[in-house]
């Protein structure tokens, strides 16, 4: 009896240990979101509600940026959700491992399925696909124990501190800089570079389209351009081999 429980506890601890390096990313990112949300005019309650309900930094920054441009509500929601669409892939690739869990457990996992918990659990589940479900769930829970509370707390501190920071610090530019820091590491492959270029050129060319819809139109073309470049490179590699 005691052995499986012990193993689950050790999986939980392993998850917590594996998630420790993420503290260095999550805390500053959360602080920055708190500050940026305050700069954008959100109240403390609004900022915290968004951070707890959505728990997805890139989408939250997207919403802030579009609200600052006074984009219509549906466009803000739609674009922010488009940024989160990648998580369909996370859900799809984690489902074979956790799909047999109880419904409420799967719902909890879904809520906490962020970039960091996905990346770490995917690595572990690929390495040990035969691990029992209970231990996989324990590992996933362990990953979120350091990450989620620090995300909430960091946002709170950022929002409270942000109100006290004077405009000379030019924190208006914290949002663009945060975005660029997320985009930059993606730009190291040709298809991604092509997609980013089409996204920028398309959005700027379509800036006249009402309701900030140019961004979404450009995104559709950018996705196509990236995927087509990838196919073209694969084919060329195939031809060369």
């Amino acid at each position, binding site marked *: 009896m005691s052995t499986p429980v012990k193993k689950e506890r050790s999986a939980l601890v392993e998850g917590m240990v594996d998630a420790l390096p993420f503290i260095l*990313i999550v805390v500053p990112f959360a602080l920055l979101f708190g500050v940026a949300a305050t700069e*954008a*005019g959100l*109240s403390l309650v*609004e900022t915290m*509600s*968004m951070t707890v*309900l*959505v728990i997805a930094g890139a*989408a*939250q920054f997207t*919403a802030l*940026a579009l*609200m600052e441009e*006074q984009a219509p*509500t549906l466009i803000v*929601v739609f674009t922010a*959700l488009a940024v*989160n*669409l*990648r*998580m*369909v892939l996370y*859900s*799809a690739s984690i*489902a074979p491992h956790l*799909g*047999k869990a109880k419904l409420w457990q*799967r*719902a909890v996992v*879904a809520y906490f*399925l962020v970039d960091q918990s996905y990346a770490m659990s995917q690595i572990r589940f690929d390495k040990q696909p035969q691990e029992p479900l209970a231990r996989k769930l324990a590992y996933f829970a362990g990953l979120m124990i350091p990450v989620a509370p620090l995300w909430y707390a960091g946002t709170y501190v950022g929002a409270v501190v942000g109100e006290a920071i004077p*405009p000379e610090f*030019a924190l*208006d*530019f914290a949002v*663009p*800089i945060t*975005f*660029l820091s*997320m*985009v*930059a590491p*993606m*730009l190291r492959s040709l*298809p991604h570079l092509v997609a980013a270029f*089409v*996204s*920028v050129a*398309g*959005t*700027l060319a379509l*800036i006249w389209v009402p309701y900030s819809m140019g*961004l*979404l139109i*450009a*995104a559709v073309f*950018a996705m196509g351009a*990236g*995927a087509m470049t990838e196919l073209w490179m694969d084919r060329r590699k195939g031809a060369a081999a």
Partner: protein
Amino acid sequence: MSTYETIWTVIILMGIGTFLIRFSFLGLAGGQTFPEWVLRLLRYVPVAVMPGLVAPLVLWPSATGGEPDIARLGAAAATLLIGAATRNMLGSILGGMAALYILLWLT
């Protein structure tokens, strides 16, 4: 938010939508998957949305009333270069903010 009246609508719809996205395949609990071409397109969603989103904010910052600004352009370039070279998100944010303060002080 005083200037954005529908903030609660945004927060609630984003919360529900994001959860449904994450729950999608976990909720089905089966072995369903997308065709390959859909997966390929989905991989490019972040890089297709974020650069377009950030470009106008960099070129026409609201803090300067929409006028292009050397300090902010330079800070953006520094962030991109550091981020692409090191893949270090935190480092590129700090580098970008440092570049911004130095350029604001110089100009």
